[in-house]
């Protein structure tokens, strides 16, 4: 840095640092005694504290129904962190994180509760000696989102406390954001009536996963892939999100959601968008999201009357998973005996743009499948001419690029290679990259990255309003088509299998990859 260059608008001390500064913040978790807070949010906050990533002043408030004391909340939070943290907690750091944590009890529609919350937050500012940034984290059932947002607005808690000296306010909203397009539009309207879009962070924790972000690195940091990343070279794409578990105790939620809303509308379409979007001019939040919206808007929405031609839905029946007999979906506690909620869905989508016209994108997701696996498989077209015979071998298979999101994060590229011997026989071999073998550090929890990004005000990995609406615009006609068809029986598949045979009918000249 040249002498005299120093000014007060930039911070010359941050150059070269891996952990960039985060402004002092109060985190307010609505639904703080719930499952997500205990399993993910509180452990993520602890791990950030452990690593020294949190700001110099960090305050924590839990908001929920249930009349518990501050001490009881701290004890509950401590137990959750000790149980679910990815590293054993350091007692002194954990004490420091929780020693001033507060609990504000009350119903989410109770104005008095927000008045008390406001007093608590003012107390945080006073203790810190400065206006803290505020993050309202909505980890509640979605029907409470508009209620909470409205009350925050009515109590003035949506506004920066001291606009010139910090005190920025942000709201993080958990999924699901909307139940269909109409509800998503209504929810966006309700939220945007209170908060500016720059204050709103709609979270999809999939985007915080290292492998998902690596998808962008793979595409845009390597000259190898981008030249073939188009309709001229790619035959089709399969995106799979398979789970071996059933619905567990979540029948209440799942009956109203189903596989399409639960995984396709958010996680899987996000994967598709990152895979298919044009290169953004920069990784600034809006530039990246502009490109995602563009490609999502290019997906041809199905005609509701022809949904059966591009979608398959099914429910798992009884079966055996990992040697254990499990009940079918309709026998699960809390599930209606005549439920038509799908636990499996497969879709065939097409993107109408110059790059992707004619390339089918196959998506499938389901519960109680043979194994847990999330992957993207990009299959290239076969070579146009083969100069040697393939007799006596598996032959030349099309190249595939496989990005595995879970359980083993990595990338593999299948190639044809000569089998050792006197004849020119070919079989596919894999070039593999596994995160565990190529990097020293383990991937942080997605929530750690996303919470820190929200504290910094970086919305790159969060979903924008138009993105949400475009996502629902793809899903809505499918929901409408399925809702209109009340007669066709829902196919079943055996729990522990690869899914229903009906899903094969979607594919053209190929088959689903083995789970």
């Amino acid at each position: 840095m040249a002498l005299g260059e120093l000014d007060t608008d930039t911070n010359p001390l941050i150059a070269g640092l891996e952990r960039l500064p985060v402004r002092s913040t109060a985190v307010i978790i609505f639904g703080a005694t719930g499952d997500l807070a205990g399993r993910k949010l509180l452990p993520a906050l602890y791990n950030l504290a452990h690593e020294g990533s949190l700001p110099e002043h960090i305050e924590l408030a839990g908001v929920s129904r249930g009349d518990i004391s501050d001490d009881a909340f701290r004890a509950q939070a401590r137990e959750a962190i000790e149980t679910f943290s990815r590293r054993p907690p350091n007692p002194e750091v954990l004490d420091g994180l929780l020693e001033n944590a507060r609990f504000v009890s009350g119903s989410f529609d109770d104005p008095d509760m927000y008045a008390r919350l406001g007093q608590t937050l003012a107390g945080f500012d006073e203790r810190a000696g400065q206006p803290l940034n505020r993050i309202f984290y909505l980890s509640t059932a979605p029907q409470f989102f508009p209620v909470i947002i409205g009350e925050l607005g009515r109590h003035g808690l949506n506004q920066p406390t001291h606009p010139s000296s910090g005190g920025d306010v942000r709201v993080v909203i958990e999924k699901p954001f909307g139940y269909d397009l109409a509800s998503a539009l209504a929810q966006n309207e309700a939220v945007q009536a209170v908060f500016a879009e720059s204050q709103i962070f709609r979270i999809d924790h999939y985007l915080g996963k290292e492998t998902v972000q690596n998808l962008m690195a793979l595409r845009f940091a390597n000259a190898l892939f981008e030249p073939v990343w188009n309709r001229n070279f790619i035959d089709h794409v399969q995106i799979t999100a398979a789970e071996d578990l059933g619905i567990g105790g979540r029948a209440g939620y799942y009956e109203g959601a189903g596989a399409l809303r639960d995984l396709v509308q958010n996680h899987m379409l996000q994967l598709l968008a990152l895979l298919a979007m044009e290169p953004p001019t920069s990784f600034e939040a809006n530039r990246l999201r502009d490109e995602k919206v563009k490609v999502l808007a290019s997906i041809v929405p199905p005609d509701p009357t022809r949904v059966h031609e591009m979608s398959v839905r099914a429910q798992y029946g009884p079966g055996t998973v990992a040697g254990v007999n499990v009940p079918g979906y309709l026998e699960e506690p809390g599930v209606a005996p005549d439920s038509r909620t799908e636990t499996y869905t497969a879709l065939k989508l097409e993107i109408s743009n110059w790059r992707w016209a004619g390339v089918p994108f196959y998506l499938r997701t389901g519960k109680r499948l043979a194994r847990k696996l999330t992957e993207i498989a990009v299959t290239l077209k076969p070579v146009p001419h083969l100069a040697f015979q393939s007799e006596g071998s598996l032959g030349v298979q099309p190249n595939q690029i496989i990005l595995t999101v879970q359980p083993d994060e990595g990338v593999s590229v299948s190639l044809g290679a000569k089998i050792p011997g006197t004849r020119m026989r070919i079989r596919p071999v894999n070039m593999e990259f596994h995160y565990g073998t190529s990097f020293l550090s383990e991937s942080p929890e997605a929530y750690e990255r996303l919470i820190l990004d929200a504290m910094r005000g970086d919305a790159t990995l969060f979903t924008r309003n138009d993105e949400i609406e475009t996502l629902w615009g793809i899903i809505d006609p499918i929901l409408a088509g399925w809702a209109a068809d009340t007669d066709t029986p829902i196919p079943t598949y055996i729990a522990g299998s690869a899914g229903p045979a009906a899903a094969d009918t979607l594919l053209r000249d190929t088959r689903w990859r083995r789970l």
Partner: protein
Amino acid sequence: MTEQTTWSAQDTTPDAIDSALRRLLRERHAQDASLVPARVLNLVVIADREWRGEIINRLERVGRYHASRTILCSISEQRSGLDARVVLSSDGPGGAVSVLREWVELDLGIDALARIDTILDPLLVSELQTVLWSPHNHDDAVEALLEMTDVILIDTDDPANFDGPRAALARSWALQDRTYVVDLAWLRTTPWRERLAAAFDDPSRRGELPALASVAVRHNPGSLTSALLLSGWLASRLGWSPEPLVATAGGAYRGTAAAQRPGGAHDVAFSGIVGFDFEPVAQTVPGIAGVTVGTDYGFSLALDRAPGGLLARQRRPAPAPLREWRVLGASRGEGGILGEGVRQALLRDPTYRPALAQARRFEP
């Protein structure tokens, strides 16, 4: 559960060791196709035989930052020939992929150091970065290996390695143009640099940064180099020109730097001279114990080690009250520092060299 496969031989050759590594890898993979050799970096350690146990303990404590192939060269005065032991270890089956790490231990005599490159060259995984750590002053081995080394790990705070901070910083500077240097003393300053950067990122303090007029660093008596590097970093980032320090009582030093730029909003109150104090304090671990930065008109911010993080104290001119708070963070410990050094071999920090240059200007 860790599973291990071992091979050893006396009076052996690099070629035989390389063959053993390849054979063990093939055998392990044939037994379990899920085993995949880690391929991140080679770590070569040159250490005295008598300190072998301590070095192994330090390497074991690096946690998840184990190199994929570690080659420990244990050096003895009298021995001749080459003995070797190879251990392949993997975590037990846990998923579709198990990571395999390779440990090669060589016993060799001091006479072999000048051409140790000819022993190690066949044993390095060629497409990976190679990190060299020589904690016991075997400069002849370092010279022999620099050509094949991408990163050298040094600790300019280690009195066993250098005859004082001047020699330590000079050695690091001399290595700068020959390879990439990761300095453990610099890594000990990381939390302090991060916290100072964060403190002045806050809008309430940003205006104080151009007017800083005093820096006091409290440090382990053996860690003056860390203190100099931290101060050198501030000087390099803020455009200060340090002058040589003067020794005061009890191993302390005092000095100044010319700021050569205005004091921002506080220009009137800023003399243009920044005062430095380096004070050794009792502390069991190496590195910094605390740092205080301040202005001429009564602002100061002090950060000191405390349980669960750093204790921060901010003073402003009266009647503003003294404010105290704790900045959260767990200590990485010395094992963590070495692990961080290995991890940093995969990164590049553009701020070390300018900080080192300024730290050298403080030398008494």
